[in-house]
């Protein structure tokens, strides 16, 4: 697992010497710890943040360190608890509200869309809503239709919200710190299968800016933009492609809104080919938006339009059984084949990459 996060760390953290190898959930915890220490107005709450499992470890130890006023569980009332977070944010606090599944956010859309996103604008700057909403995308082991949704595009659609989905420990920590310091509501999307992945992470506090994409691996033949857990699959695809001499550039937008189109377009100008792999459904998704803006920006500059393709969840509810679930998600091999076809043309002879080891998927059996 450390391959890609390694590369992030080495390529980007050259001058931050003091790194340690930690897992995604530990990186998050480090962010909470450092920000709560720095700013007494930061507090963290939500269902189960204060139990002995501590949201898969990401909040463990915080009650002991910061007390029950600043780290507390709630009743099962997602809608009102979101309103509570917004109110506290308007009053100058910096709440971090946690949902253990993104699917549950459908219960608090009214507060997020009608109030959090709009308050600063509608009240003409009289209030700000510096709120972080942590939310986890589930996957695998029969979690199924109501525990596996990735709904980032619903939030990207709404002016006033920011949306981030870091794919590795380094960016999880830096993005969380940036999100906590941001004066807007930020939907912070974690992926359950990333929780145990390791990466080299600076021990000190740092921000990964919201609105800046990262070129994870440079390449020349095709640009692959991948989101959230699909970054791991894209990196697997890159290896397969490498083995047959195709050089893929892998970009992680990290921040889905604001969206760093400049980095993506610069890459596609070089490779002339863009494959977008979303960890979500396609229709009206992040993939549609990235495709659309790429075309618009190329047209604006009168450039020859690149070849573009998208991959994402099958247009169905996520089934629980493993054979169907495997078909529901893109993976390193299907991504590699798609990129191969884009590079070699439709008439290229069929290619089947070898089976990957995918520890974070194949070995996942909870905890949920």
């Amino acid at each position, binding site marked *: 697992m450390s391959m890609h996060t390694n590369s992030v760390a080495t390529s980007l953290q050259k001058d931050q010497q003091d790194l340690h190898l930690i897992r995604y959930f530990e990186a998050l915890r480090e962010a909470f710890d450092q920000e709560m220490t720095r700013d007494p107005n930061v507090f963290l709450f939500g269902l189960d943040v204060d139990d002995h499992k501590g949201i898969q470890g990401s909040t463990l130890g915080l009650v002991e360190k910061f007390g029950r*006023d600043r780290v507390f569980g709630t*009743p099962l*009332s997602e809608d009102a608890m979101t309103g509570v*977070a917004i109110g506290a944010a308007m*009053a100058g606090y910096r709440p971090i509200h946690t949902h253990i599944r993104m699917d549950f956010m459908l219960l608090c859309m009214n507060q997020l869309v009608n109030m959090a996103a709009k308050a600063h604008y509608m009240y003409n700057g*009289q209030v700000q809503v510096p709120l972080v909403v942590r939310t986890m995308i589930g996957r695998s082991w029969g979690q199924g239709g109501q525990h596996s949704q990735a709904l980032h595009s619903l939030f990207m659609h709404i002016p006033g919200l920011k949306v981030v989905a870091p794919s590795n420990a380094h960016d999880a920590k830096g993005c969380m710190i940036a999100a906590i310091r941001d004066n807007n509501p930020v939907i912070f999307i974690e992926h359950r299968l990333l929780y145990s992945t390791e990466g080299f992470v600076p021990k000190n506090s740092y921000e990964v800016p919201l609105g800046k994409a990262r070129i994870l691996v440079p390449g020349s033949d095709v640009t692959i933009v991948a989101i959230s857990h699909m970054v791991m699959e894209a990196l697997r695809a890159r290896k397969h492609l490498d083995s047959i001499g195709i050089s893929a550039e892998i970009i992680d937008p990290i921040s889905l809104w604001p969206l760093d189109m400049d980095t993506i377009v610069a890459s596609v100008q070089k490779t002339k080919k863009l494959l977008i792999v979303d960890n979500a459904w396609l229709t009206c998704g992040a993939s549609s938006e990235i495709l659309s803006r790429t075309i618009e920006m190329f047209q604006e500059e009168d450039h020859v339009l690149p070849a573009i393709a998208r991959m994402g969840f099958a247009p169905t509810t996520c089934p629980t059984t493993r054979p169907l679930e495997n078909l529901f998600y893109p993976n390193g091999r299907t991504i590699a084949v798609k990129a191969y076809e884009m590079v070699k043309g439709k008439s290229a002879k069929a290619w089947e990459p070898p089976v990957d080891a995918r520890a974070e998927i194949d070995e996942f059996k909870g905890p949920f």
Partner: protein
Amino acid sequence: MDKLAPQLYKKMLLIRKLELRLAEIYHTDAVKSPVHLSVGQESIAVGICDPLNKDDLVSNTYRCHATYIAKGGDLREMMAELYGKSQGCAGGKAGSMHLVDMKNGVVGASAVVGTTIPIAAGLALAMKFDAKKTGKQRIVVSVFGDGGTEEGCFYETINFAALRKLPMIFVCENNRLAIHTPIERRWATEKLCERIQTYGIETHKIDDADVFKIRETISSAAEKIRNTGEGPIFIECATYRWLEHVGPFDDHKDNYRDLEEYARWKKNDQIDRLAGMLDENTRNQIQQEVTDMIKDAEIFAENSPYPAAEELYTHVYAH
């Protein structure tokens, strides 16, 4: 009562006269906003807000003119907001349904029923945190209609507020109507206070809209919460909406409501009642002051420019 009656009278009259003035000029299209008037309901807003401190907060629904004024919201800015002008309390971006004046303790109102109730609890939570540092307990009053109590977030908030003993007062303005639908078609029973008591919350039910009674109830509730740092307290106030749900007219011909009930409430009008308690001089003087304030606000609104085009893009994101 010597100072209280004129004070409450003035506030109620200001709300009444301003709203009736809005109704009067509505046909000129100067006010380009759907208006939900509180005519007939003024004693609640005034009874609630009068005993509050400037740094206490009142949180509201779209029917928010009355509490905005009663809490001391800037009148000129309110009028300019209704006119869609740049000097409005929200620069013309909010209109009648989303009035806000944080410097005077008026939290932004919302056009979506129920939405502001949990937000008020969040503000109260913040005040509870603050009080541990400052030693001073501010409070929030969350106002909503009978319809608002039907939304799930109301119960979620009540439970949370009781669990965390938040420094807030809930006030249900029960006018027995949600748009045109009477309460009997929406509430299984009318035992709202009894229900709220099961959360361990102190409740009060005031069925005659008596402005002194409302004021006194809020005042002792506020004092209790300030002293102990612990709330919430719940108050249900019966009242009656004289005019149509939205817009400047009455709709008595529409035949969906009991006109005898209206007549009863009209007879019980707290503004008339307090007028009767004042000598003519005081009354006249207050009426003049109120008329002048409204005129002044109107002129301000008229003279204020519309927002410039670039305002469309300000405050989408905070920096």
